């Protein structure tokens, strides 16, 4: 039994690592920014953490904090040119950013080790650390959603004109979303570095972006459960479908197409919405238009 559980531990670690990055993606989408920069910023965080420990011999916790700050700063810089863009233009610009980061990590051989990778990173992060970080992340996301900032994000995402007419500064809130999302991505990037001995630039490229984005789209973009459910299902699924290992990517792709078509809000969000609607129906219907004014 114990061995059985231990066998799945690496998978659970992967889930926790990816969950943090999924929340980084989820947060910007929630604030109405279609940025896909998470993976690129995670690369910045991973190399910041890795280099600080391997080359400069700093303790891992310090490197983790530095990675979070670095991620937040890079993301803040990115927010400046992106402030005037919306929707698909933001997506294109941030994909370009990921490509730039990937190339930089490749070319800066003296610092990052280039394509050969950065090796000899001590593996100091275990499942417990990851679990604590994940819980802290979920708490942070819940706190933000329930605060004035979360309400402002909701308003901006749905209608910028309304948000502005109610005194919400779109620029300030988008900037904030970038910083928090970036810090989160940088932090989880460094966790990944300290969990895997080695880093190569190509790790933080297009396939990883698709994976992270899929977790959020598949799970749901608006509730706190979305990233959890999406990440869990998409990580477990390939394991369950091992007999179909050859067709793994096919199954994965098919599932995404089905979700987008039939559950466009994502598995968790749709489910929560249905439960909510059922509960409302169970209550006695509100009296027909009781029109009391002042």
């Amino acid at each position, binding site marked *: 039994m114990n061995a059985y559980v231990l066998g799945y531990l690496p998978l659970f670690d992967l889930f926790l690592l990816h969950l943090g990055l999924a929340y980084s993606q989820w947060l910007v989408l929630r604030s109405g920014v279609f940025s896909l920069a998470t993976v690129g910023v995670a690369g910045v965080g991973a190399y910041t953490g890795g280099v600080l420990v391997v080359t400069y011999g700093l303790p891992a916790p310090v490197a983790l904090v530095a990675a979070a700050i670095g991620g937040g700063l890079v993301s803040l810089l990115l927010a400046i040119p992106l402030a005037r863009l919306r929707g698909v233009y933001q997506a294109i610009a941030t994909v370009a950013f990921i490509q730039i980061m990937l190339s930089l990590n490749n070319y800066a051989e003296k610092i990052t080790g280039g394509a050969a990778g950065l090796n000899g990173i001590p593996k100091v992060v275990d499942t417990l650390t990851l679990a604590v970080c994940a819980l802290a992340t979920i708490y942070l996301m819940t706190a933000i959603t329930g605060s004035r900032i979360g*309400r*402002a994000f909701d*308003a901006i995402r749905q209608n910028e004109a309304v948000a502005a007419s*109610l005194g919400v500064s*779109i620029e300030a809130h988008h900037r904030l979303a970038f910083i928090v999302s970036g810090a989160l991505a940088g932090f989880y990037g460094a966790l990944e570095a300290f969990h895997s001995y080695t880093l190569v630039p190509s790790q933080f490229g297009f396939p990883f972006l698709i994976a992270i984005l899929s977790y959020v789209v598949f799970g749901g973009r608006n509730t706190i459960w979305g990233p959890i459910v999406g990440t869990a299902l998409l990580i477990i699924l390939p394991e369950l479908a091992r007999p179909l290992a050859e067709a793994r990517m096919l199954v994965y792709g098919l599932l995404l197409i089905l979700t987008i078509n039939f559950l466009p809000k994502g598995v968790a969000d749709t489910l929560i919405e249905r439960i*909510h609607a059922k509960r409302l129906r169970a209550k006695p219907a509100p009296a027909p*238009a009781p029109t009391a004014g002042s």
Partner: protein
Amino acid sequence: MALKLVNLSKRFGGVTASADVNMTVPRGTITGLIGPNGAGKTTIINMITGMMDVSGGQILLEDRDITRAAPDDICRAGLARTFQNIRILPENSVLDNILIGFHRHEHCSTLSALFGLPASRQETQAIRDKARSLLTQFGMSAYADYPAGGLSYGHQRKVEMMRALASEPDYMLLDEPIAGMNDVESDILAELFQHLAEAGKGILLIEHNIRFVSKLCEKIYVLDGGRLIAEGPPAQALRDPAVIAAYIGGSDA
């Protein structure tokens, strides 16, 4: 103590949507703005609220020049609006739609909002209570948890009104607030607007319903083709030959 428009103009290329409009919206009364379709009424509201650039002239909110201020700054200066085409947040519940209206009065620090510290939680609880009492006042408590996108047209208008009220503005710009409402509902709103004016707010009311405007406004402005063609007490302004011509066509039309 008034909202003043001084020679306010708006040109789209060669088209003049608004030409040298001078208006005063004093606090404590309801001021009307009427005019045929395409007269430029919403253009004026959009310029006042900063959603459209001003081509010429000035907008003064009491002592402050807000001609080129950003929309969110203008709201924080104490001016709220409702939209002609309803704009609610369809994914959010009715209660959440009203909560966002309180944004201007939420002052907890960014850090306490990010980390869910007591200051942030207490503030959220306080505005929730206020939002619930607004819902009770409008007879909409039963709908608090319903998604706003699924409400009827009249109810959505009420949600928008509550949201604007939540920001506790000094001035309110109401763009056709009773469109799509029946007489009973519009009478109730009329009473509410009068209460708000008595409480010292300045209200600018844009409306097509002449009867409604005549009943509520001390003074009305009549706009046609972007220009003011008449102003004064409703009874007088509505008898103005230029106004009659604008609405039903002049003798030489």
